[in-house]
């Protein structure tokens, strides 16, 4: 507990620095990642993050120590080469996207491993620091490194904010941008540069293998909460920053624990929670909405069935008859009847089912909507009377009272539908 207080009160200036750094880079990579997620190029980030490894090693070999400028430059150049090769292979060979990305990713990583083992065997004492680039350790970031990483993160955030219009055009409709005269090629180039920069600054804290998560997960999770780009960026930035801080805290408390994995676990928890529980788009709320809709349609069908019976002159309806009209659905039908009785639409008397006044007007409403829609399709869309039933069968459940009024006035309060059946109104005697 004292660790917790010590960490979050920022008594130690270096902790404050690290937290600021990881927040900035989390937000930066979440911003870039959200755009690339919307562009459906999420895995390119994965390829780039593996591909920076040879650059890091070369930078290390040239500098002979962990010099951040050499390492960042090396990482940037090899990331850029990988990005270039990916798009070159895409336009010049018939390989599929995923094969290209997986090949580039593993080839660059293989080169990286070769260089890494060469460095290992050279016996350079600075070598120990290099492993941090694979799994990441935020606590071990030095203050002067932090200025570089933080500065680059701020640069990314500012560029993305300043040119938001251009970048949204790039991911949503690049052809439109081109047709109204924007230099889409240049914008794509700038975007790729930003993406590589985001990977480069993240690797020391998160590590090359897991950096992809920081680019992909925040955007994917935030997408479940909103449809607006502005909110999307804010939410993904927040997810990423919170996870970054938690990951840093864990590797502060347990020193040998790398930061990257904890950040990723946190982010994935946010992501899976969003997938499951987000309102409207989450798995759970879509399941509930579907269940509700199915229940509603079954109720509507049952009311319609009884109404059709009344129309054809039948007077009494036994429960058994209703069960037989919905074969293989006895349990569900029984449940629906109970629900309808509870909501005062039907009454049950010695095994016989009848409408309450409220139920009758509800049944009339459904049949009316069905027949109005059939008539509308027939008159306005010129669809033959024998082709209109299926569409009406769906729309009778979802037409709103406003649409009903509109249909009535458009069709001039009709009496008959295309099949010469009466369109029932509330004050009809049936």
């Amino acid at each position: 507990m004292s660790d917790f207080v010590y960490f979050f009160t920022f008594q130690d200036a270096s902790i404050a620095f690290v937290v600021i750094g990881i927040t900035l880079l989390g937000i930066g990579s979440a911003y870039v990642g959200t755009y690339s997620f919307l562009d459906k190029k999420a895995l390119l980030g994965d390829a780039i993050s593996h591909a920076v490894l040879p650059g890091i090693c070369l930078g290390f070999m040239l500098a002979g120590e962990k010099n951040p400028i050499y390492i960042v430059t090396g990482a940037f150049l090899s990331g850029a080469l990988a990005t270039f090769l990916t798009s070159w292979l895409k336009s010049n060979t018939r390989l599929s996207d995923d094969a290209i990305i997986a090949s580039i990713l593993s080839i660059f990583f293989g080169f990286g491993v070769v260089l890494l083992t060469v460095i290992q065997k050279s016996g350079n004492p600075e070598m120990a620091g290099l492993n941090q680039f694979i799994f990441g350790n935020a606590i071990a970031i030095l203050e002067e490194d932090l200025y570089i990483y933080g500065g680059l993160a701020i640069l990314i955030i500012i560029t993305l904010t300043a040119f938001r219009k251009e970048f949204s055009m790039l991911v949503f409709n690049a052809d439109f941008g081109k047709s109204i005269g924007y230099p889409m090629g240049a914008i794509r180039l700038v975007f790729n540069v930003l993406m590589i920069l985001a990977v480069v600054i993240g690797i020391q804290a998160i590590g090359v293998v897991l950096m992809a998560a920081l680019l992909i997960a925040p955007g994917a999770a935030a997408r479940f909460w909103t449809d607006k780009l502005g909110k999307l960026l804010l939410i993904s930035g927040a997810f990423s920053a919170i996870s970054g801080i938690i990951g840093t805290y864990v590797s502060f408390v347990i020193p040998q624990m790398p930061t990257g994995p904890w950040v990723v676990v946190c982010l994935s928890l946010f992501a899976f929670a969003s997938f499951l529980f987000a309102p409207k788009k989450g798995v759970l709320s879509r399941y509930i909405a579907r269940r509700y809709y199915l229940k509603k349609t079954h109720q509507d069908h049952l009311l319609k069935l009884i109404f059709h019976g009344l129309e054809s002159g039948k007077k009494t309806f036994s429960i058994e008859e209703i069960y037989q009209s919905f074969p293989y659905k006895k349990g569900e039908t029984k449940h629906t009847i109970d629900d309808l009785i509870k909501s005062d639409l039907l009454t049950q008397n010695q095994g016989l089912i009848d409408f309450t006044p409220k139920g009758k007007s509800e049944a009339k409403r459904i049949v009316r909507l069905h027949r109005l829609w059939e008539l509308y399709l027939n008159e306005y869309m010129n669809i033959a009377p024998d082709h209109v039933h299926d569409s009406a069968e769906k729309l009778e459940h979802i037409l709103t009272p406003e649409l009903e009024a509109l249909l009535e006035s458009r069709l001039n309060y009709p009496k008959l539908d295309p099949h010469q059946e009466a369109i029932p109104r509330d004050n009809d005697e049936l």
Partner: protein
Amino acid sequence: MSFDQNAFLIIFTASLISISCGLLGVFMMLRKMSMTGDAISHAVLPGIVIGFFVSGSQRGLEVIIGAGILGILATLIINWLKNKAKVQLDASIGITFTLLFAIGIILINMLAYKVDLDQECVLYGEIAYLPIDLWITDAGFSMGPRITYLAVLNLLLVAAFIFLLYKELTLTSFDENFGLVIGLPAGAINLALMSMVSYTTVSSFEAVGAILVVALLVVPPATAFLWTKKLTSLIKLTCGLGIFIAIAGYYMAYLVDSSIAGMMVAVGGVVFLGSALFKSIKPNSIFGTSTSIKPLEN
């Protein structure tokens, strides 16, 4: 530069591993699932660690079972995210494998004092130690390097799998819907392929490391794909490339004194990029008969 018994054993084992990976990789590539292979090879890590912890040694069957379960689990999570949660495919792959890999790394760190497994070994393996890692029977009789046996067994199983299910694999790779219509259980075949990939990943991770397995799964088939359009020659070419990569990789690594597995991938990469460069030079740019038509001007 020498060719002795150790060199032969290493090259032989490496060839076996790259052929097994290549055979499966061909079908993964045709199904446009190369990145799923990548995801699986990352995702088996927690299974390996747990299996290690349970059995107490890397020889345990538990390791293979653990990794197999995790590989299938990864495939199921990816499918669930894509179909049920409606996350786009690339993002579901990215989220699934990073999560599982992260859990694996955390487990390694938590159990660091209890299991003899380090991050580096899992990541890039060390095939160079193969000749001294012997399989010794209870009677104390040395049977030769243990990993070679694993590689032989792996190749036999992969070859048998592909031989037995060749028709089904081919059909579902090229036209899944047709396969479904004529009554092939496409989902089950897919899962079987994924389990073979996870098994191959585990059986090879000690030698070449989990991440470089991806390279062997993807790069030889992709290279072969640039040269041929027939499935049978694609498979043959992939196997040939696997053997070439093993031989060239070994001697290159010997020359610069580096990781053999890494060098194998590097050699594969050079062959791949060279092929792509060679194949992308279109006849037009050599013979240059057609010129682009200029738009009309007024």
